[in-house]
């Protein structure tokens, strides 16, 4: 079965610094999703990547899917306290829309 490994598991950065979170799959990725979760709340959809080499940006967050389609990275530029939370990557598993998730990366941004 497919597994997703996120790294690092947790991250503390100073406000204004850049950071990267990685998501590595044990199998080829067909549809990779990034979500953000604040404590006690649900998951907020950030971005979806499908094609190898694809890159998408939303405000100061950029996500990429590598050419071989087994890894994705999420990059935050000039981090802000509002970026704090748990970031999860999810991958499509089969054709019924089922997702498998990485274990999450907890991000703290110090003012």
């Amino acid at each position, binding site marked *: 079965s497919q597994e997703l490994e996120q790294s690092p598991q947790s991250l503390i950065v100073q406000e204004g610094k850049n950071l990267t979170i990685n998501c590595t799959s044990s199998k080829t990725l067909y*549809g990779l999703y990034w979500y953000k979760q604040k404590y006690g709340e649900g998951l907020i959809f950030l971005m979806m990547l499908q094609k190898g080499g694809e890159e998408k940006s939303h405000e100061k967050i950029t996500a990429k899917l590598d050419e071989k389609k087994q890894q994705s990275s999420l990059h935050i530029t000039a981090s802000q306290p509002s970026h704090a939370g748990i970031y999860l990557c999810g991958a499509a598993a089969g054709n019924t829309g089922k997702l498998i998730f990485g274990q999450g990366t907890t991000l703290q941004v110090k003012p």
Partner: protein
Amino acid sequence: DAGITQSPRHKVTETGTPVTLRCHQTENHRYMYWYRQDPGHGLRLIHYSYGVKDTDKGEVSDGYSVSRSKTEDFLLTLESATSSQTSVYFCAISPRGQSNQPQHFGDGTRLSIL
């Protein structure tokens, strides 16, 4: 925001009691999913539904049952709750269950079984 409501938001109950969690959507989406979230495990799929009365198991379905009698409601039942089922439960929806469509999530139900 996707119209997804989970109820209750918090529940504390005792081992051996039945528990039902409800997910209600106003988007008329065909696919609905139940996940549980535990530290170190991310989210894991319990059951999902691809239409009224059409359901299937996920990776951690033991001890859980589901029902979907209407498009808008998806119920998750723990017939006899155990402490290992203490978790945060999330419902998600998707219009057609395809890999090119993101799922949208409810705010979760925090369930504690003592």
